[in-house]
């Protein structure tokens, strides 16, 4: 039986961090902080991948590598969108960005 010393606590920590990220996305109105919370959620998922990777080999670590790449691409494009919105509306407050609200 393979050893995995911190499997349970790591998964619990991952769950707590993911939930903090979700709460941040639901609570905050600043678009930039919302993006930071998305990064926090991605980090929590990375932790779960690595915790399982202890048991199942380095595949988990390779998945984390891909998640990091996607996170970097997402941050670059997302922040460019925020910049474009700010140039247009002079705000990043999500309450004021309601063009698509019915």
């Amino acid at each position: 039986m393979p050893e995995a010393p911190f499997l349970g606590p790591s998964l619990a920590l991952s769950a707590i961090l993911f939930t903090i990220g979700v709460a941040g996305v639901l609570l905050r109105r600043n678009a930039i902080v919302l993006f930071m919370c998305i990064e926090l959620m991605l980090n929590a998922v990375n932790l779960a991948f690595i915790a399982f990777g202890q048991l199942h080999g380095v595949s988990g670590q390779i998945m984390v590598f891909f998640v990091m790449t996607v996170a970097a691409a997402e941050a670059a494009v997302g922040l460019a969108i925020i910049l474009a919105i700010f140039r247009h509306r002079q705000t990043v407050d999500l309450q004021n960005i309601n063009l698509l609200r019915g």
Partner: protein
Amino acid sequence: MAEIVFYFFAVAAVLGGVMCVLQRSPVASAMWLMSTMFSLAAIFVLLNAQLIGILQILVYVGAILVIFLFVVMLLNLGTAAKDLRGPSSIAAAVAISGLLVIELIALWRYTPARLAAEIAQAPEAARVMFPGGALAEQAAATQGVVGAVAGPMFQQYLVPFEITSILLLAALVGAVVLAKRRI
């Protein structure tokens, strides 16, 4: 000893996450997020993922958070007077988060034995999708910390790796097109 280190960094990570959500100033949020990411890097090293721990610091702290700080600086936002949503939204967020954390904490009951049994019963297709290499610790001991990750990445995962480069190119072009005033 390892337990003390693990729980120290776990508490630091959770504290950083909570403060990141609660801070009003975006710069303060970014700094607390940085503390979370450093703590997670330490935990990755404890979990035998040394290379990912270093990449976490280089990529997340060194690249992504710096982009965040650049954008905060470019927009010159300062501290918003009222940044949280209204009371009804807060109640909804607390309820959703509470449900989610209860659901996810159930993973604590996951044991190595149960995981091994599930892998043994997994259909062949799942095993092809996630080829089981040597365990992370053993692989690092025989092939080195970088070699253990690099081997599977350039063999089983070569095609996803190449697709990643296309993704990065698309993101690069997209970010330039979006952020530029006039093309």
